[in-house]
């Protein structure tokens, strides 16, 4: 045998090296044995998680923090099926990850072999695209196509299922110099005429409003967004996926819109005459009842995915393109037209800003505090102080996620890491692992509820293993709080299966893994407990017992219009 023949496993690792993969989050198994054997001699870092779902979430944490493609790996059958939630999650939030899965030998496929599952079929709708590799000759091309598809256009997860015999076969490694996907189209430039018309509409609007989302983060276009916002001087919201695209402290920022958005954001969205939508998809959690959404507004919609345009809300002026490329062109056109049009509506614009200021003052997103119990909002405000808009915050899903989004500042993009579209509980902790590997220099808070935390406890071992200095803050209200909130409001307060009793003693739990944990329930001690956690050089598990019945407001009830938001809990009626 010629000495430069390589196994499929090694060829795969060559390709990953060529793609500058630093680390893989994974879990080995039977059919990936050849891969893990090859990995033994390779410089690529492998992080052994404790459940494959968390490999996908950690890869996402890495990808969301850096913008690079995250990589996760699992064996056939149960390994692959365990990845599925993480893949769908990445699909919903357009996060670039590549999942590598082992498959039984091609000769055994279809025979219901041990640990065989139809991964290719199962993950069809969970991925942007997927591949099945049975032949070593196809492997390099497919791997590079997978990375290209994951990262380009509208990013997303791509899965490559590789049979055991393809890992084991021997072949000469021929580097791939180009990839050819004739049917895969990326529209990035934006139509020049449309952009010019958009700029004109922007100057002519009396009450313009900018609606920026996850697409701005994905495109690394925060600088371009800021320039555009300042040129037009329009009030701007960032969606749950877009927080940090414009600094939270920017004077034009009026917080998050939607179901638990700010009063000013939702009122402005309902009152505007022109929405400039940038890298967003008019999600139902943002629009509320679609028929009543922004009734007076024309819509300019910039998105790289043509299928998002006019999917939910018809765009009056669609621009298919990459916000990173379109926004500077829009800015140029704005500047060109400024002499003729700027100031045309100065009076109306001033009145619009006054109105927005008034909304902001009427109902600000202010933290609530109590002397007797820790209000969850108070907890978020204290975390915000420690972060100063600079820390990475990964969140799980539920009430704590909404309070974090409302009350913690993000002055840079890629600091706020959460499961937006799919809303996967158990996301926050493994995502923090990926984030901390990507940014060892950063302070990482993982804010989780007592429900989601208990879905990810196994990963405390991974954190301990690598001594990752993640600050795990459990906002513990003893309930599946968001579900309970809906039961209170819409199901006659019949609290069915939402109480989470038997929460473990975190001091013992963290201690069992060899790091520190603490429970705090006193309002007076909470701020210092947070500081102590941050000052601890290693990981820290802080269990914060908050007032159990606090609910998230403002709130647009499902099916309600944005301007019909409920601002505060119904007050008990005096008898």
């Amino acid at each position, binding site marked *: 045998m010629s000495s*430069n023949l*390589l196994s499929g496993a*090694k060829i795969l690792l*060559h*390709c990953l*090296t*060529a*793609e*500058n993969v630093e680390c893989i989050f994974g879990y080995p198994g039977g059919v990936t044995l050849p891969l893990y054997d090859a990995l033994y001699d390779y410089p690529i870092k492998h992080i052994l998680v404790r459940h494959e779902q968390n490999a996908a979430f950690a890869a996402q944490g890495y990808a969301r923090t850096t913008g690079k493609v995250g990589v996760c790996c699992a064996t056939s059958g149960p390994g692959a099926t365990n990845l599925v939630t993480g893949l769908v999650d990445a699909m919903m939030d357009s996060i670039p990850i590549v999942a590598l899965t082992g498959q039984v030998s091609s000769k055994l496929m279809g025979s219901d072999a041990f640990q065989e599952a139809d991964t*290719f*079929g199962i993950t*069809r*709708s969970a991925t*942007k*695209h*997927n591949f*099945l590799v049975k032949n070593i000759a196809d492997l390099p091309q497919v791997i*590079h196509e997978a990375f*290209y*598809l994951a990262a380009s256009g509208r990013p997303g997860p791509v899965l490559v299922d590789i049979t055991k015999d393809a890992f084991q076969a021997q072949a000469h*490694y021929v*580097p*791939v*110099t*180009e*990839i*050819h*996907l*004739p*049917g*895969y*189209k*990326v529209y990035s430039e934006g139509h020049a005429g449309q952009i010019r018309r958009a700029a004109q509409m922007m100057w002519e609007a009396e009450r313009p409003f900018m609606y920026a989302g996850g697409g701005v983060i994905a495109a690394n276009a925060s600088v371009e967004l800021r320039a555009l916002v300042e040129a037009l001087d329009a009030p701007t919201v960032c969606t749950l996926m877009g927080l940090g695209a414009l600094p939270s402290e920017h004077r034009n920022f009026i917080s998050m819109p939607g179901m638990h958005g700010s009063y000013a954001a939702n009122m402005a969205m309902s009152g505007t005459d022109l929405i400039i939508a940038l890298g967003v998809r008019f999600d139902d959690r943002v629009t509320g009842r679609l028929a009543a959404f922004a009734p007076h507004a024309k819509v300019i919609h910039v998105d790289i*995915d*043509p*299928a998002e345009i*006019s*999917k939910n809300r018809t765009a009056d002026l669609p621009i298919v393109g990459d916000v990173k490329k379109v926004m500077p062109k829009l800015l140029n056109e704005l500047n060109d037209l400024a002499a003729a049009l700027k100031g045309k509506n100065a009076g109306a614009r001033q009145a619009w800003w006054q109105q927005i200021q008034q909304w902001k003052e009427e109902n600000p997103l202010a933290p609530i505090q109590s002397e007797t119990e820790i209000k969850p909002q108070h907890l978020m405000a204290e975390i915000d102080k420690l972060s100063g808009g600079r820390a990475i915050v990964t969140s799980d899903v539920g009430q704590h996620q909404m309070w974090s989004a409302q009350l913690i500042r993000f002055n840079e993009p890629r600091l706020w890491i959460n499961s937006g579209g799919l809303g996967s509980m158990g996301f926050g902790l493994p995502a923090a692992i990926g984030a901390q590997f990507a940014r060892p220099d950063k302070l990482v808070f993982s804010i989780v509820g007592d429900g989601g935390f208990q879905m990810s406890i196994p990963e405390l071992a991974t954190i301990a293993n690598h001594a990752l200095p993640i600050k795990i803050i459990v906002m513990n209200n003893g309930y599946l709080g968001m579900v309970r909130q809906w039961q209170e409001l819409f199901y006659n307060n019949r609290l069915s299966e939402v109480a989470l009793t038997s929460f473990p003693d975190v001091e013992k739990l963290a201690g069992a893994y060899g790091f520190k944990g603490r429970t705090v329930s006193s309002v007076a001690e909470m701020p210092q407990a947070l500081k102590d956690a941050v000052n601890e050089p290693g990981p820290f598990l802080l269990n914060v017992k908050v007032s159990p019945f606090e609910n998230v407001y403002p709130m647009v009830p499902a099916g309600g219009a944005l301007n019909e938001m409920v601002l505060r809990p119904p007050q008990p009626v005096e008898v």
Partner: protein
Amino acid sequence: MQQIISLLMENKPGALMRVTGLLSQRGYNIESLTVARTFDPTLSRMTITVDVEPSTRAQVIKQMSKLVNVLQATDVTDGPAVNRELMLIRVKTSQPNRTAVLKEAEIFHARVVDSTTEGFCLEATGDSEKLDEFVDVMRGYGEIEVTRSGMVAMSLDNKKLRLSAPVPLGASAEEVLELQGAD
């Protein structure tokens, strides 16, 4: 309404699954679907008829176009296009009716592809409505059995096929060569 879509796609494993999966995932009902290779064996042409709300027609095409293996998705509902369907129909008929059945077949330009003492097997092509009528007529002569191909459509528009150019990979392939030497 019925929307007719013509798809040109790469003949790759799982291609059909991607199309049918997408349609069911997005809640579009498939009325018929035909697929076969084109003169280029690496490509397949698919004609799909789906039952959709008129307002979602554009969305269906956009979603189809997003499939990586789809080279072109065209809405041919409003033409200009030729739509045809092939039908095989077996008619059991009594001896006295045989001549009448053949007369009817002639009117519908159907061909006899098999003849037995029991009856005929006929082949007919045409647009779907015409075939529906033929079925109705044949039913009058006795027990029938029908297999239809589903609609195949050919657009008469000169829509240019736009394909993406190959994308060069970064210089990192060179590094890998070195790595290979070190192995």
